[in-house]
Every structure is written in C-alpha cells, then in structure tokens.
C-alpha cells in the first residue's frame, strides 16, 4: 500500500532507479516518469534505454531495485522491490511521462533553467518500463526521520 503522500512525490518528482550486477557493481538510470498502483504497490518506472545502458544491461527479472524520488521541497522517498517485468512503455505511461516533462519545464523555468537545457534531461523517448513490486519504503527527506522505514 502506497500512501497518498508518497504517491504524490512518485508521480510529480524526479526519480533515479538503481540496481546491482551479480558482482555487486551498482548502476542507476534516470526515470522519465513513474506510474504507481497504490493498492498493490506496483511501480512502473519509465526510462530511456539508450542513455542508461549500464543499468539496462545489468537489470533482469528478479533484480532488486531502489527508486529514489524527490521533489523541490526536499521531500523524498526510497522505494525498494524486485523487478517483475521489463517491457515497452504503454501509451498511458508515455502520457504520464509527457505530462511530467511539461511540469518539469515549468519548474525549471521558475529556477531560471531554460527549456532547451531541461530538454537534455527530459526530452528522451521513454522506451523501457521497469516494473517492480514495492516491499520497503524509506523516508529520504533530510532531517531526523531520514532513513526511517514507513
């Protein structure tokens, strides 16, 4: 069960998802959008394959992943789970990525970052969906509760 508070950060924040190789080398990828089923705790993390090759080449069904998501206020969470699917991005998920990208352009604009620079991070095809089932959620917001499992 994913709380409304965590769901909000998942779907409006910046996310980075990490994995480990069989020799315990870490890699990560940058999320272009995250979809979430709050009841089942199923997360779909959409990313671009071409700019995340070490991560993509390492990841497989059953891999353990760590998804960090955070928003401008510094509220942040870390969700861990095991990968259940690796597949193409569905249309509604791609739409969620597009919506997030536009939100980010607006946010970046308020921070003085022009769209042509923001595009270098955000304007990439979302062509891989990493699906995992959440079994742990940690607070990552800086402060006394950082690291606490919720």
């Amino acid at each position, binding site marked *: 069960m994913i709380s409304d508070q965590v769901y909000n950060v998942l779907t409006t924040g910046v996310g*980075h998802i990490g994995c480990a190789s069989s020799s315990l080398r870490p890699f990560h990828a940058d999320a272009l959008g995250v979809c979430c089923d709050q009841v089942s705790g199923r997360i779909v993390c959409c990313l671009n394959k*071409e700019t995340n090759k070490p991560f993509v080449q390492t990841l497989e069904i059953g891999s353990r992943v760590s998804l*960090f998501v955070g928003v401008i206020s510094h509220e942040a969470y870390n969700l861990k789970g095991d990968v259940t699917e690796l597949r193409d991005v569905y249309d509604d998920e791609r739409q969620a990525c597009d919506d997030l990208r536009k939100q980010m352009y607006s946010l970046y604009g308020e921070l003085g970052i022009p769209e042509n620079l923001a595009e270098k991070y955000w304007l990439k095809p979302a062509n891989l969906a990493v699906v995992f089932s959440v079994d742990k959620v940690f607070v990552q917001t800086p402060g006394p509760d950082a690291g606490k499992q919720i």
Partner: protein
Amino acid sequence: MITDEHLPALQGMFPSWITTVSNDGEPNTTVISQIWHVNETEVALSFQFFNKTKKNISQNPFAFATITNPASFDMYTLELEYSRTENEGDLFDEMDMKLEAIASMSGMSGIFELKGADIYTVLSISKNNL
C-alpha cells in the same frame, strides 16, 4: 580521467545522484548535493546523513554516480571505488564551510553536519547525453 570538461559538474550547482550496494545485493540510490573534485583521479563525497550509503560502502566499496554541468546540462556517469575518509584538513574544511553555507540558505542549518570527506578513486567517467 577528470579533465577541465568535467569540473563545472563538480561545483555543486546541480544535485548529483549515487548508487551503492550492500554485500547482500540490495542497491541504494540517493541524491547528494555535491561530488567534489580532489584531483584528476579522485573525487570526494561528503559524509553527512545518507547513512545507508555509508553502510553500503563499508561492505562494498563500489559506487556509481551521475554529475551534471549546470550550464550545458551535459551529464556524466562515474564508476567509483571508495579509498579513504578524511576528517580534517583543507578538503574537509572547504566542504564543511560550503555545506553549512548551503544549509543556511535553504533554512536547514545544522541538518547538513559534515561527518567526513569520503575519497573515491574514479574508475571511469563517461558522458551520458542522448
């Protein structure tokens, strides 16, 4: 390894992110305020409050990080191996002053206490743009 091209991304003007792994294979990805340039083969991470990262590194010295040039938004990924921690000296003092200044500006003074400067060897650095 680290050249002038990479230096703007090591100034802390844009957040970086890092992944480490425990010895039982569980990754941990988190965002950090800055990865510091030490020399052409070493960088430093501030040991503040990301205790899971510190714990993982104590078990498994490898890390994977991404840094961003704030002017161009060129991104670079670094494969790192933990070398040592410095708790005093010029680098530690520089990090401490800057982190406290950043914390003060964002109203979070005291939360960003510097516990040490973790020095990593850069095993590889790659540009990561599309």
